[in-house]
């Protein structure tokens, strides 16, 4: 834990990519197995949370310090791990050696629930504040030290001399403490064997289109275009021994969609959009939301919101890795496979007919409201399926945003770098004389604006509910959003898709914000 805490502190403070890579390589080099593999799992979010709840730490802190002093401190720092680690009485006794990561995990694992708080306090008593911070972060999960999984893998490549691409290809088939992976990286064995139709494969993502730059240099004949559907991106991985659905981040969501999983036939890895609706007619996103909110669906949900996948790409055709073939060929293989293998919940994504960018521009707006898509995807016919977000081959071209003026109602603290700021806001619009919430926004402003918003929130607080502050209903913000839908879950009856702050209207009186009628008229 000593070395791991030094690593975390360095990672959070270093800004240069190269510095981060070099401290990580050093760590992998000098840390024994299985410690380094657990650390890697914690850093990349693949290690399951050791199961210490934040409430346990609050209770421990409350036994040592007056509640009001704790609350004032927490309010000031904004981050629980940091507050507890700093406020913990520094006994400087350090009688016992700190556990290694492996001991830390196994001790927590073996300790009965009733004795966990004694175990954790003992760990914290024998540590300095940085070590306490690292242990709490590790024990509660979610390190948030500004390190992407991609950068951790880049460091593995730098450390070993193996190719990043190769690491990516096997990554999702492996689990902490990554013994086999390190054996390969250390040159002791060959690359670990992965059962491809049993594991998640990182997805290929598109970049937003830059109209002026991209259209001038790109030839429409080199590209295919499809609707961009407003569902969730999924990967279906299935063969005779198992069937899984994964979200974009690799979370297994199979249990939530038995209607799809039960109907998967054959052996393949497919990439597509999960949607709900009868006969492949997609319903708006907030209907899909009903399904996403539950771990497993009710009978009514299955009947009212049947799910399907609109497939647009193929990664494995039976056992064959087709990711390095051009999109044009992958598409042919996908069409061929879809014809051969019967799958009642799979539908193939339509290819749009266009011969110029201006024609595509027309298509993009023409059917946006009737079909309910959110723009178009443009993909290079020669593109390989490369994990991550490579610049060049794939573009997303979203429909133009809509705008409304909302009034700030509540503010909540952000996370990580923004944890000491009120950065997540709930906005409302008028229904008669009453403000009703329409959505939350936490992006679209600059760092300077964040400081001003935070100051405004602190100076205009009416009530506090834990981390949430209710503010004076005085600040108007212009929100941009993709579309508005009827929703029974919101008091306003309206749900916004992708609301974000477009600009802050410091000048505008709250009375002049938008009303539910004006928004309903554009739905």
């Amino acid at each position, binding site marked *: 834990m000593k070395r791991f805490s030094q690593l975390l*502190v360095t990672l*959070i*403070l*270093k*800004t240069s990519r190269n*510095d981060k890579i070099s401290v990580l390589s050093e760590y992998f080099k000098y840390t024994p197995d299985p410690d380094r593999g657990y650390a890697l799992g914690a850093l990349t979010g693949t290690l399951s949370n050791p199961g210490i709840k934040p409430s346990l730490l609050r209770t421990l802190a409350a036994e040592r*310090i*007056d509640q*009001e*002093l*704790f609350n*004032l*401190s927490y309010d*000031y*720092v*904004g*981050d629980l791990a*940091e*507050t507890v680690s*700093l*406020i913990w009485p*520094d006994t400087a006794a350090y009688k016992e050696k700190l556990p290694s990561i492996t001991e830390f995990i196994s001790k927590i694992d073996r300790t009965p629930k009733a004795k966990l708080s004694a175990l954790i306090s003992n760990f914290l008593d024998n540590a300095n*504040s940085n070590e306490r*911070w690292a242990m709490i972060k590790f024990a509660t999960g979610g390190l948030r030290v*500004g390190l992407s999984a991609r950068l951790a893998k880049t460091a593995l490549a730098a450390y070993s001399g193996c190719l990043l691409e190769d690491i990516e290809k096997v990554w999702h088939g492996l689990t902490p403490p990554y013994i086999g992976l390190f054996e390969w990286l250390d040159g002791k064995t060959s690359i670990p064997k992965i059962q491809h139709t049993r594991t998640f494969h990182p997805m290929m993502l598109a970049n937003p289109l830059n109209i002026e730059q991209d259209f001038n240099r790109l030839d429409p004949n080199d590209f295919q275009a499809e609707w961009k559907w407003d569902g969730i991106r999924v990967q279906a991985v299935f063969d005779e021994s198992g069937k899984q659905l994964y979200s974009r981040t690799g979370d297994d969501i199979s249990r939530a969609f038995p209607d799809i999983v039960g109907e998967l036939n054959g052996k393949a890895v497919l990439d597509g959009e999960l949607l709900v609706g009868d006969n492949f007619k997609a319903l708006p996103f907030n209907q899909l939301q009903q399904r996403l909110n539950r771990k497993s669906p009710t009978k009514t949900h299955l009947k009212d919101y049947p799910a399907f996948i609109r497939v647009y790409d193929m990664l494995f055709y039976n056992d064959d890795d087709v990711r390095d073939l051009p999109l044009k060929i992958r598409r042919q293989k996908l069409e061929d496979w879809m014809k051969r293998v019967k799958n009642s919940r799979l539908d193939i994504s339509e290819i749009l007919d266009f011969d110029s960018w201006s024609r595509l521009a027309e298509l993009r707006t023409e059917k946006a409201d009737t079909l309910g898509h959110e723009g178009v995807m443009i993909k290079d016919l020669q593109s390989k399926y490369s994990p991550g977000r490579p610049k060049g081959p794939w573009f997303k071209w979203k429909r133009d945003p809509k705008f409304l003026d909302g009034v700030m109602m509540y503010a909540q603290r952000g996370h*990580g*770098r923004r*944890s*000491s700021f009120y950065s997540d806001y709930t906005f409302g619009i008028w229904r008669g004389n009453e403000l009703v919430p329409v959505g939350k926004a936490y992006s679209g402003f600059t760092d300077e604006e964040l400081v001003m918003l935070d100051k405004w929130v602190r100076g205009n607080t009416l009530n506090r509910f834990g981390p949430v502050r209710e503010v004076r209903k005085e600040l108007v913000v212009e929100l941009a959003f993709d579309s508005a839908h009827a929703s029974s879950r919101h008091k306003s009856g309206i749900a916004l898709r992708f609301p974000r702050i477009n600009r802050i209207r410091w000048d505008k009186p709250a009375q002049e914000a938008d009303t539910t009628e004006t928004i309903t008229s554009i739905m």
Partner: protein
Amino acid sequence: MQWINHELYIAPIDAYIDPIKPVDKAIITHGHADHARPGHQKVLASRQTIDIMKIRYGEKSATSFQSMEFGKPLRINDVTITLYPAGHILGSAQISIEYRGQRVVVTGDYKTIPDSSAQAFEIIKCDLFVTEATFGLPIFQHPSPHNEINNLLKSISEQPKRTHLIGVYSLGKAQRVISLLREAGYDHPIFIHGALEKLCDYYSSERINLGLLRKALVQDKETMKGAVVMAPPSALRDRWSRRLMDPIICQASGWMTIKQRAKRSGVELPLIISDHADWNELTSTIDSTEADTIWVTHGREDALVHWCKLNGKNAEPLRLQGRDEELEI
């Protein structure tokens, strides 16, 4: 106590302590800009505080200056004024005022741990204690400054080719960090930004050992590779520092306790070196003064007021204007 109010105005002698606006009579605790302002008629302060005010604001920054020695009482009418060291920066004083059998002590800014660049703090028993609370939250438990200097020296030895650029306030912090480095045996020349020059010269003339200092000039960036360079925090993020070669950004301040805060200011190597008392120093000093009334100013008053009440003392926050933490050291 009727004769001193929340603006630290002492009625029987018509004088203010550390006033923000120009007044007729001012008693000044120390030379930082949130305490010492130009434009008063008469200023009473320690000799070194007066010297510092003249360096920063000019010889004529007050109509007249009267200097006092530590521990030597001055009687005006029925009021006795005595200065005692506050341990914050060179010349910093606590102001003790006695009137009709009661004693008030106003600390200005202070710290109680040893510092060879400032006179050592003394505990003065009193009836009303007016304390600062810059770090008035229990999360502030400053580590030993020697520990922080060792971290700096370790980083220098691990990355001997890179410049360590340290953000320090020009009065007090700069000289303290330099003298800590000297005490730890670091004997290379230390490069200082132009804004630190006059005050470093002054400290040296007051026999504080700062060793060999050189002016940090951008054209010498090659020679500054591997060296320690000190600059005001504002210069850390401006063009000046970007012209140095790939420096490691450090900052010496009590605020560096909070990692997210260090990260937000782009600090890679935080040095928790503070010229203000931490939570434990604040609470134990309050106890030692045996005062039964505590006025809390200058920072996070709420927590310290709450602690005082928990411990059976009368306490009130003084929300003095112009004490801005961003100006703070």
